């Protein structure tokens, strides 16, 4: 404790810092902490206290860090079945095992809680600069418990957590909150996490913003933060993060960077961001349009990535990333003309473009600003509005429900207005703010049948009817319909079979079928499982998916990460062991969901995927819908590959093999102490 105190002792302001540092040099000699020894702060918002714990190093080799270890901590700290918006639901913030180490784009930080959107696993991942800063501040994990009696913000710096009143920040948007906080702390190198009005108002899909663009978007983590009366977390660290084998790590990191930036897709993203995907998917007919009525939006040239040219000044990156996929842009007029924006992501082109039938990049950018400022998840917001528009078209909703708003397709102004209605919970916005299933229950009639959701969470604007592998991905993902949990995007390339085999047979020597035709159902369960485990691994290491096999088969995977882990942390885990660790964490997330009522029926898609063929697109994507029987067989195959029974529950042998026995239906009644 004494050592820890002096390590982070603050210095008097009136002396030049270098003089003080020199005087106290002896006291500042830092004990070398191991990268694998993870530090956790348990923060009690009611008592305004915190305590620091050192995690059992065994947890690191078993669950790595970030998303995987967060699922384990959620088991420990969240009482089973707790109210997602009650004080007993913890908000768990976890840096990845490699976050801040300079390994390939090691920027990421994970947020976990019981989701107020789905009632299942809440889990969201963010880039930017917060994760590394958290580690330099002396922590890998924050577990935030309880509810503050009045709005607070937290200052996490150099091994300490301080509590400050946030009443004057309450009600402010994200941009203004950031300005206010930076003015107050006068330290431009601090990192700020905050919620906007949507989080304060507990919109079930509110996000946590970690910059002007970085967001923990999905599963409503912002609502959890809002329910705790917690407006913001500011983080600043000056501590060391030791690298186990510095020379080797530098050399190997350089090699991995070369591997990533040499792929064509990285070069394209460096120039255009994820918006580059739109041209391809829209032309093919893989884009959800007018909610789910079409799979392509014709005459949408203004949504293609080149349309960003007049707005974009240059590109910005997360910590340590060479792909820098974010446009820096500013709008010359309108309410946000004084604020820089970043993005938009591919997801926003759907959310505020095709799904709602809008054809204007300007609208997309304005709405991008709006959701970032109000603190809303882009994907869920766009999906909810698109659904409401279809209900409006069908007469299930009328102007009496919308507060007089004309919710017609392609009404740009109505989309922006509806975003505000959701964030401030006005009129129809108050119903949409509850998320897909509760909103359908409130509206009644036939409304549920038009929802495009899985497990209570809406899907990206991709249309998976022509692509069985992508459809399986969203049906089984651990947090509801989600492309970032297991999307085998390279399946769409029709790669040569030998290349496909090189990717998907490693590292465990899978010898089942693999097919390089993306309209096929065969061998796709393996692809989805493989991607799920890989994505779990990178989410747990804190590495961005653009630096692994997502858009390119030649990007780093298990073998490379094994080396990165060893050189940066000293932890020797083979590719095979990392595979098992990822598998373990995936099964653990499933256990959490099973504990909260998940059943086989929940690993399934809405009827529209099976009953309504796609009307547009290239021949390969036109007239397609999924086959129930074949799809069910694919789900069963997926279960079998994982070692789950026919209801999707882990067998005792699997639990034993992964060292998870005793986790099912028995976790942490009463939570951690």
């Amino acid at each position: 404790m004494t050592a820890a105190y002096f390590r982070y002792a603050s210095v008097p302001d009136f002396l030049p810092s270098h003089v003080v540092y020199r005087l106290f040099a002896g006291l500042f000699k830092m004990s070398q902490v191991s990268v694998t020894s993870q530090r956790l702060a348990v923060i009690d918002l009611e008592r305004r206290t915190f305590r620091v714990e050192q995690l059992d190093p065994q947890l690191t080799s078993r669950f790595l860090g970030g998303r995987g270890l967060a699922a384990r901590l959620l088991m420990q700290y969240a009482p089973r079945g707790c109210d997602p918006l009650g004080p007993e639901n913890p908000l768990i913030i976890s840096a990845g095992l490699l976050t801040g180490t300079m390994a390939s784009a090691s920027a990421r930080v994970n947020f976990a809680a019981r989701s107020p959107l789905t009632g299942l696993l809440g889990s969201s991942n963010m880039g930017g600069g917060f994760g590394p800063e958290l580690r330099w501040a002396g922590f890998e994990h924050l577990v935030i418990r309880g509810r503050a009696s009045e709005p607070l913000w937290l200052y996490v710096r150099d091994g300490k957590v301080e509590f400050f009143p946030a009443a004057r920040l309450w009600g402010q948007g994200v941009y203004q909150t950031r300005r206010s906080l930076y003015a107050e702390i006068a330290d431009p190198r601090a990192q700020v996490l905050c919620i906007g009005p949507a989080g304060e108002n507990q919109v079930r899909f509110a996000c946590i913003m970690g910059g002007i663009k970085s967001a923990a978007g999905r599963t409503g983590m912002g609502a959890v933060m809002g329910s705790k009366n917690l407006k913001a977390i500011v983080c600043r660290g000056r501590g060391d993060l030791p690298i186990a084998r510095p020379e080797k790590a530098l050399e190997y990191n350089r090699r991995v960077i070369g591997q990533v930036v040499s792929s064509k897709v990285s070069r394209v993203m460096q120039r255009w961001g994820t918006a580059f995907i739109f041209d391809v998917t829209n032309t093919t007919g893989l884009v959800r349009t007018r909610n789910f009525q079409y799979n392509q939006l014709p005459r949408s040239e203004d949504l293609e990535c080149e349309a960003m040219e007049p707005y974009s000044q240059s590109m910005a990156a997360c910590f340590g990333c060479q792909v820098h996929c974010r446009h820096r842009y500013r709008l010359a007029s309108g309410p946000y003309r004084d604020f820089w924006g970043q993005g938009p992501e591919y997801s926003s082109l759907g959310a505020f473009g095709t799904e709602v039938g809008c054809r204007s990049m300007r609208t997309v950018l304005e709405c991008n600003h709006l959701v970032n400022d109000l603190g809303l998840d882009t994907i869920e917001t766009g999906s909810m509005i698109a659904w409401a528009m279809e209900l409006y078209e069908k007469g299930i909703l009328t102007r009496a429900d919308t507060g007089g708003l004309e919710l017609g397709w392609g009404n740009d102004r109505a989309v922006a207005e509806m975003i505000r209605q959701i964030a401030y919970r006005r009129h129809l916005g108050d119903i949409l703010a509850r998320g897909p299933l509760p909103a359908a229950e409130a509206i009644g009639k036939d409304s549920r049948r038009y929802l495009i959701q899985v497990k209570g969470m809406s899907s990206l604007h991709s249309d998976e009817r022509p692509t069985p592998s992508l459809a399986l991905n969203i049906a089984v993902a651990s947090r509801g319909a989600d492309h970032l949990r297991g999307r085998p995007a390279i399946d769409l390339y029709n790669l040569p079979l030998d290349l496909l085999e090189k990717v998907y047979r490693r590292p465990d020597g899978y010898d089942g079928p693999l097919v390089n035709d993306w309209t096929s159902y065969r061998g796709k369960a393996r692809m989805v499982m493989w991607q799920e485990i890989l994505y779990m691994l990178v989410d747990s290491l804190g590495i961005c998916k653009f630096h692994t096999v997502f858009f390119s088969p030649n990007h780093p995977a298990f073998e490379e990460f094994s080396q990165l882990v060893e050189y940066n942390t000293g932890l020797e885990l083979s590719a095979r062991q990392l595979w098992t660790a990822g598998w373990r964490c995936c099964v653990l997330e499933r256990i959490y969901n099973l504990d909260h009522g998940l059943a086989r029926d929940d690993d399934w898609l809405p009827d529209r995927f099976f009953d309504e063929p796609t009307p547009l697109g290239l021949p390969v994507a036109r007239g397609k819908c999924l086959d129930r029987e074949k799809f069910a067989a694919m789900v069963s195959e997926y279960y079998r590959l994982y070692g789950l029974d026919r209801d999707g529950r882990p067998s005792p042998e699997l639990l034993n093999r992964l060292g998870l026995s005793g986790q099912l239906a028995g976790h942490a009644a009463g939570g951690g102490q």
Partner: protein
Amino acid sequence: MSAAGPKRLHVIADRCTGCRLCEAVCAVRHLGVTNPEKARLQVQVSEDDNTFTPVVCRQCKKPRCIEACPGQALSRDENTRIMHLEESACDGCGKCIEACPFRALRPDPGTGLPLACDLCGGDPCCAEFCDAGAIVFAAARPGKSR
């Protein structure tokens, strides 16, 4: 040595994406840790104000830091412009830090001694790792376009 003089670090701020990998690798190369406070350069990043500016030692022709050092602890090789800090001769008075007109020189928060850029001995890793080309190690400043 070519007519253009010794190689030195050039910053083309327009190209900087604010990833701060240079800060990370600098501290790893010199100290085996990542810690931006101990890097021999700094990137000033503000998303809100859209500033992305690397601040690096420019290997000035007339190095004010070396001139300001009362104990001759700071010196450099005039051919390579590699700076050297003789730690035993440095008492951490901070005069060099105050003298740097670009605020590129900062104290090590652990020891209080100046974090003098030694160009990694002639192959600076900040430039090596800067894929965007915002920090370039060359005799002459490269043109702006890529």
